[in-house]
């Protein structure tokens, strides 16, 4: 009989936690996955969405339970923000926050991982792009990613595949909506190149999932499972015998004198407690809950970096009315992107930026505005039709840099139903981010002129993405990082942190594919140790 309850215990069942568990289970290891939140099926989430008054709130269709509040639960986050007034929505449910991701699957560029040596900014990663590249491929083939051959993701017109890839995209690109076909012609006149945005909203049946048919509610949930989410990997690990326990809120982590973790404890919603042991422990509770658990248990303290260096990809939307009908809102929520601002030589002073060409259905927002202008009857109907045909939004997602002052800490003024604290969130828009505004305005002016458009909203309000990076960053030494290149805690030999919170810099693209590549790498590494 084993001395442990499992070879490995993974805390968190999201896209990264389940991916680690999958590697371990495939290697024949015994694994327990603990998920704080409840399980909600995809069909139920879709039903909740259709019957929700909050279809503008990504968290609304998912469980909001008193024993596992999420970042949008009232009072759970105490925000202290400057220059930005929103914070990321995270979920605590089986499958994790990837239940409501857009499935944008960009790779980082080598330069994104060498910001210090390439541009004199922030820090370099302790691993290189070349080391991570095979795991990017593994992640892409595990979840199914669409893309085109010879794709230069840097947007610099290189004329060849960049960053380098050892295997092609597993799936062809999805169909190109009319709005992009037309807009591509228009903005090319000002020198902008539109490319397909790689995604895991699959273009053909793959691994038991059907092709996307354009339900266009990707941000909430895919009604048919065409979009990858951590829930799909949960199904795989269950078939491999992984013991997944939902409603299991980990709160206490025991350590020995040498720093090794010896046990962890979880609470059930009715406050029953359970102690579990394993050879190796993995915390994969996203970029908020992972550092929260570390802070609650005084772990990883040597670096002073737990919970710090939060990066969220500051974002500005530019919305216009084109002079001719485009009919955005047909298809998926994002199809195309402009990458030319991603890796320019002046990145030393102006952040990496990617423009997403948004394709969300605009009609409800347009109707809301028209009603507030007291339009009714034919005037209202005509306004909805006309503006829905012509409206288009460019979303500028920008790179932010690590700053120790930005981050999360414990919010002891909040107690959930188990008596556990909430989170305080500190974030300030930096001068580096602000330095981007003149260029963003230049581009918006060009977009307006190219479409002979009408300005709906000037780009002045910073929002953020649902991306959380930096809060338990990796590095080469315990003095300024929480985990090493294998995601092992410097202070706790058998504790690994698998979260996008380990990313020391943010790049200018969505972090989830990178997180999954890191998770696969860590999972295979851990499997060799236990």
């Amino acid at each position, binding site marked *: 009989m084993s001395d442990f309850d499992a070879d490995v215990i993974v805390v968190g069942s999201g896209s990264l936690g389940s991916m680690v568990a999958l590697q371990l289970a495939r290697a024949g290891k015994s694994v327990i996955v603990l998920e704080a939140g409840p399980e909600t099926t995809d069909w139920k989430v879709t039903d909740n*969405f*259709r*019957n*929700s*008054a*909050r*279809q*503008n*709130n990504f968290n*609304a269709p998912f469980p909001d339970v008193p024993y596992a509040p*999420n970042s949008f639960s009232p009072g759970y986050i105490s925000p202290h923000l400057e220059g930005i007034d929103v*914070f990321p929505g995270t979920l605590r449910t089986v499958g994790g926050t990837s239940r409501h991701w857009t499935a944008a699957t960009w790779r980082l560029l080598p330069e994104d991982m060498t910001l210090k040596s390439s541009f004199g900014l922030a820090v370099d990663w302790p691993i290189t792009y070349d080391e991570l590249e095979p795991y990017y491929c593994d992640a892409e083939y595990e979840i199914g990613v669409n893309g*085109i051959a010879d794709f230069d993701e840097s947007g610099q*017109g290189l004329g060849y595949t960049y960053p380098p890839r050892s295997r092609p995209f597993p799936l062809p*690109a*999805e*169909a*190109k*909506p*009319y709005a992009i*076909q037309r807009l*591509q*012609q228009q903005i*090319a006149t*000002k*020198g902008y*190149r539109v490319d*397909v945005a790689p995604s895991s909203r699959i273009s*053909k049946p793959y691994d038991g999932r059907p*092709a996307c*048919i*354009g*339900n266009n*509610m990707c941000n909430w949930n895919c009604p048919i499972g065409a979009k990858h989410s951590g829930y799909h990997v949960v199904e795989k690990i269950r078939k491999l015998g992984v013991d997944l326990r939902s409603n299991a809120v980990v709160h206490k982590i025991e350590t020995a004198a040498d720093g090794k973790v010896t046990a962890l404890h979880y609470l059930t919603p009715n406050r029953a407690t359970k102690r579990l042991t394993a050879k190796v422990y993995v915390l994969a509770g996203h970029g908020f809950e992972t550092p929260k658990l570390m802070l609650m248990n005084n772990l990883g303290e040597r670096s002073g970096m737990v919970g710090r260096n939060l990066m969220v990809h500051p974002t500005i939307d530019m919305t216009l009315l084109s002079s001719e009908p485009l*009919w955005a809102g*047909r298809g998926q929520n994002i199809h195309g992107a402009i990458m*030319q601002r991603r890796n320019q030589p002046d990145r030393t002073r102006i952040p990496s930026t990617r423009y997403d060409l948004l394709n969300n*259905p605009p*009609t*409800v927002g347009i*109707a*809301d505005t028209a*009603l507030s202008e*007291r339009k*009714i*009857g*034919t005037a209202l*109907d005509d306004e*909805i*039709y006309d503006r*829905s*045909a012509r409206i288009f939004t460019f979303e500028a997602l920008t790179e932010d840099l690590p700053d120790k002052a930005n981050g999360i800490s414990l919010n002891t003024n909040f107690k959930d139903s188990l008596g556990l604290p909430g989170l305080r969130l500190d974030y300030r828009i930096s001068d580096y981010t602000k330095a981007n505004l003149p260029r963003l*305005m*230049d581009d918006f*002016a*060009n977009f*307006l*002129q190219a479409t002979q458009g*009408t300005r709906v909203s000037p*780009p002045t309000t910073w929002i953020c993405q649902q991306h959380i990076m930096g809060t338990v960053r990796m590095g080469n030494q315990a003095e300024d990082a929480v985990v090493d290149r294998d995601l092992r805690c410097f202070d706790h030999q058998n504790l690994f942190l698998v979260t996008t919170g380990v990313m020391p810099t943010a790049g200018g693209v969505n972090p989830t594919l990178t997180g999954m590549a890191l998770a696969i790498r860590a999972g295979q590494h851990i499997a060799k140790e236990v």
Partner: protein
Amino acid sequence: MSMDRRSFLISLALIPPAVYWSTSVLADGSVSDAFMQVSRIITGADNLTPGAAARIEGLLSERHPGFAAHLATLYTALAASPSREAGLSVLTGNDLDTALIIAKPWYLGYVGTPSGRILKDDAEFATFLDMQAYAKTDSIIPAQSYPPGPAGWWQDTPRGVDASDLPEGATTWAYQPLKTYTIAAPDPAWRAYAAGHFDSIEAARASLGKGAEQ
């Protein structure tokens, strides 16, 4: 509530027996019938479902004191008009307020103000399938989770759009309009307009001189 209902019933007696919209107008004099008729006039849709109408009427009655009386007054005003547009276009004051209150849940699918960032607000669900915001695009933009066809339908040119000038191959991602791209410096007038310094490009051009190209 009882006063509102009495007021409403009194007003109903003043309504002409034959109005323009439907053969089932006020068949039994119930509040729901009146609400349904007013809703049909406001939305221009004759396929509103009774269940959604009952839910919306209930929500509005709870949230707006005197709603039934306002509804009755609005009904009287609309019933006296020869057409939807004639009736709605002349509404003012309380009647217009009431019409907008009724329009909101039908067009947006909710009452109240939903929050996009916190799970606490005063919003309540009204309808999804009867939501008029999508219907008014002539279904060119389908309601979320109700796509009209198999994978790739969104590549087709939307109904009523002339795409004959698009180059061959523009429907594919491999296609690019140019071989190389160089981002242009922005025109000063468009730049000033984009930044919100002027309300229109014409105003920006007038202020900044020669301004932008057409």
